[in-house]
């Protein structure tokens, strides 16, 4: 069997032209969604009978675009698509901002380089300018506190006053690491319910352990907790534990285990038969994360237990009272195990939270970050379940997607603060770029900073354009109005953006700047496009 492979090589000027066309096509799809008066994008579904999918989120929109028909243009489009998806993953919002920043800088860059500019030097100055812009944005950030301010920021992201109000309350109560459960609702409204304490997806081994028929849960107060990932196949394995409990006068016991056999469950049920006597219920140990029993360790920390791990050869023999954790209240049902006010060492809990916050900052992708965040939220205690309602099933789906996106962006805002919205924070960085351009030592450096300065006004331009107004006129008014002033497209007035609550999450804006300008710097250095054909298989006969 013999394989052949052909590659198609595209040189300049076609490479730049094609990439530019592809990038502009991708950016132009997303541009209309920027600002509080966005336009929607409709996607045809796979089955023609279905109503088109209506989207206003840049990240989701670009994910729907799989390929452009022209393979050269497609490379440019897919390059920007990747940039915008990274923005969506890391920050949860700001994809349209990132897209227009990228588009402006790239178009200017291509014009310059095709007339003789040095792409490597331009790249170096772009990257330096980008760092300076990001530092300026961070310096502008103010902390986000208070229910009303949080709600105001949420509304600039979700454009849904009901949703924003609820998010304002939730984040004010639970903080940036608060745990959310988001579900589809059955009414037109958004509803929420808070849960005090902590709970994990660790069901009872049998529903017969449920003694509270009203609340459908097993429940105990001031209860010792045995924390393990052990397998209890034989009821006799409980003997040592139960004997110790009896000698210590323990009235109730929670057992966390990886497996409890049917006979062992029956044994526990039999010794818990008398409602006024000893009660025990057993819950399924949590699944290890990436092979590590970190959740079990978190639980042990919170309740002050010594965890028993089978990997170390631990058994329930010789368990002492000091090995057990305690909680003021513990409950379990068919899905979850929870407790309130575990008696673990607050210092150790504090230390664990600090460690996890460091890991959260260092996390490279949304999935890793979310796992750490969930752990922090549970250690802090308290969570909320939100039911997202709407006028129709499609409306509910759209609202739920918007809520999830907004929650992600709001976490960043709470952690890193906010900057004036409406593109004003980026406009505020222009003077520094223009000053640096004036002091530039060569044409490439001057071009780079002037390009960044021009690109920084693009988000404000597009917001104004999308609202149906002339951006040149409005930007001139903004410039004359002074620092912090911007255009409120809803009231059509020049206002102090921060004072009226038009702010953006600093983390979203800085991420958009980073994604856009770091990627443009790279894209402008692309000189040649190479397409690989699928390999041909030739059989010798």
């Amino acid at each position, binding site marked *: 069997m013999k394989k052949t492979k052909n590659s198609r090589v595209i040189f300049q000027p076609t490479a730049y032209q094609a990439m530019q066309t592809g990038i502009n096509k991708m950016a132009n799809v997303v541009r209309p969604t920027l600002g509080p008066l966005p336009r929607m994008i409709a996607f045809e579904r796979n089955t023609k009978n279905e109503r088109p999918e209506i989207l206003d989120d840049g990240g989701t929109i670009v994910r729907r675009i799989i390929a452009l028909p022209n393979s050269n243009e497609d490379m440019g489009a897919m390059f920007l698509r990747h940039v915008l998806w990274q923005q969506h993953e890391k920050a949860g919002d700001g994809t349209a901002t990132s897209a227009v920043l990228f588009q402006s800088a790239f178009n200017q860059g291509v014009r310059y380089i095709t007339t003789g500019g040095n792409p490597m030097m331009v790249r170096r100055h772009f990257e330096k300018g980008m760092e300076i812009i990001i530092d300026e944005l961070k310096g502008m950030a103010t902390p986000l506190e208070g229910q009303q301010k949080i709600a105001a920021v949420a509304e600039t992201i979700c454009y849904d006053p009901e949703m924003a109000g609820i998010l304002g309350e939730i984040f*004010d109560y639970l*903080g940036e690491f608060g745990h959310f459960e988001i579900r589809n609702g059955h009414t037109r409204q958004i509803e929420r319910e808070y849960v005090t304490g902590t709970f994990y997806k660790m069901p009872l081994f049998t529903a017969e352990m449920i003694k509270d028929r009203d609340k459908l849960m097993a429940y105990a107060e001031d209860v010792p907790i045995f924390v393990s990932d052990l397998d209890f196949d034989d009821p006799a394995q409980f003997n040592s534990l139960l004997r110790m409990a009896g000698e210590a006068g323990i009235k109730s016991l929670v057992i966390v285990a990886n497996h409890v056999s049917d006979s062992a469950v029956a044994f526990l049920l039999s010794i818990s038969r008398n409602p006024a006597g000893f009660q025990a219920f057993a819950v399924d140990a949590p699944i290890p994360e990436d092979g590590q029993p970190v959740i079990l360790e978190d639980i042990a920390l919170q309740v002050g237990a010594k965890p028993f791990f089978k990997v170390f050869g631990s058994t329930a023999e010789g368990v002492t009272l000091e090995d057990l954790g305690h909680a003021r209240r513990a409950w379990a049902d068919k899905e979850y195990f929870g407790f309130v006010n575990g*008696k673990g060492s*607050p210092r150790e809990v504090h230390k664990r939270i600090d460690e996890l916050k460091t890991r959260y900052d260092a996390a490279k992708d949304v999935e890793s970050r979310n796992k750490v965040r969930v752990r922090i939220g549970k250690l802090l205690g308290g969570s909320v379940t939100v039911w997202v309602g709407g006028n129709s099933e499609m409306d509910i789906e759209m609202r739920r997607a918007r809520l999830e996106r907004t929650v992600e962006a709001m976490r960043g805002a709470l952690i890193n603060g906010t900057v004036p919205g409406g593109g004003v924070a980026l406009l505020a960085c222009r003077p520094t770029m223009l000053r640096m351009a004036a002091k530039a030592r060569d044409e490439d450096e001057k071009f780079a900073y002037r390009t960044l300065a021009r690109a920084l006004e693009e988000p404000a331009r597009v917001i104004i354009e999308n609202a149906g107004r002339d951006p040149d006129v409005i930007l001139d008014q903004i410039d004359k109005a002074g620092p912090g002033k911007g255009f409120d497209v809803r009231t059509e007035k020049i206002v102090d953006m921060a004072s009226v609550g038009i702010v953006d999450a600093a983390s979203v804006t800085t991420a958009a700047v980073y994604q856009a300008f770091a990627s443009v710097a790279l894209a402008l250095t692309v000189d040649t496009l190479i397409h690989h054909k699928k390999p041909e298989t030739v059989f010798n006969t």
Partner: protein
Amino acid sequence: MTDEFNQESEGEEVVYALAASPDFAKTGTCFSARQSGLYRSDDGGETWKSVYESLTLDMPLVTTSVVVSPAFPQDGLVYAGTNGGILRSANGGETWEVAVLRTPSPLVSALAISPDFANDKTLFAGTMEDGVFRSTDQGTEWVFWNFGLYDPNILCLVVSPDYQTDKCLFAGTENAIFLSRNSAHSWKETSFPLDRGPVLSVAISPNFTRDRTLFAGTDAHGLFCSKDAGKTWQPVPGLNVTSSINALLISPEYPTKAEILALAEEQLFISRDDGLTWSDWRKDIKFEGNPIAVAAPSGLSAGSPLLVGLSTGSVVLI
């Protein structure tokens, strides 16, 4: 003990807390929370009478905390914290209603009342093991949320003097000091050094909105001060004590009169220069028993009366 002090010895018990009526200067009305119950005096602490008689108790009801309404002369509202619940009286202690906190019942270690109580009807109860409870109906119903309060053992509790606007309160625990900005719905740990707890006492400036000042007394690490609402804390070196600082009071005219009273090492110390230097409140005082609680119904100016509760169960007016 010198003759000029009036005292009433109640045997071997502890005075945990003291509360004076806002019109103490005129009426001499005050309450002491003790191991044997709650007592009221109407003669400035000279004589005391149990206010639990209407409860017909089988055994003494240990009372660990007490507060009175800011409008006590008009509404007669008194609250007493016990092991398991909070007692409320609307007639100065003659009769009581019991509010049982959720089971298992916690020990109520601290009570704090909103300065705007007449309007918001809000008060807070700090507990051992269950964090902070809040009532917004003058103590009938109590709820707890405690998001972020990972140390639920509350040793002291203070409400911001501007609570009506800022909804702030501070809780000292065995390990840390927590701040809530939303009426105890949720808490954030301040940067108080973790290894300097337990925090036995916290006092907040009456001018907190402007000066953002707090003082915190610890079990064995002295006195700390924050001038930025708990963001940063510094030790107050002028007060060189290594034992418990059980109580702290700040002058009602702080910072104009930068007076701070600290109950530490079985002595009362006063600073009149914002903690730079300290002296004995009165050098001729020798308590029979350890001072545990203190109230300054008329402020901290020289010559102002102080009520001091002792570990022997006595309350002394000095």
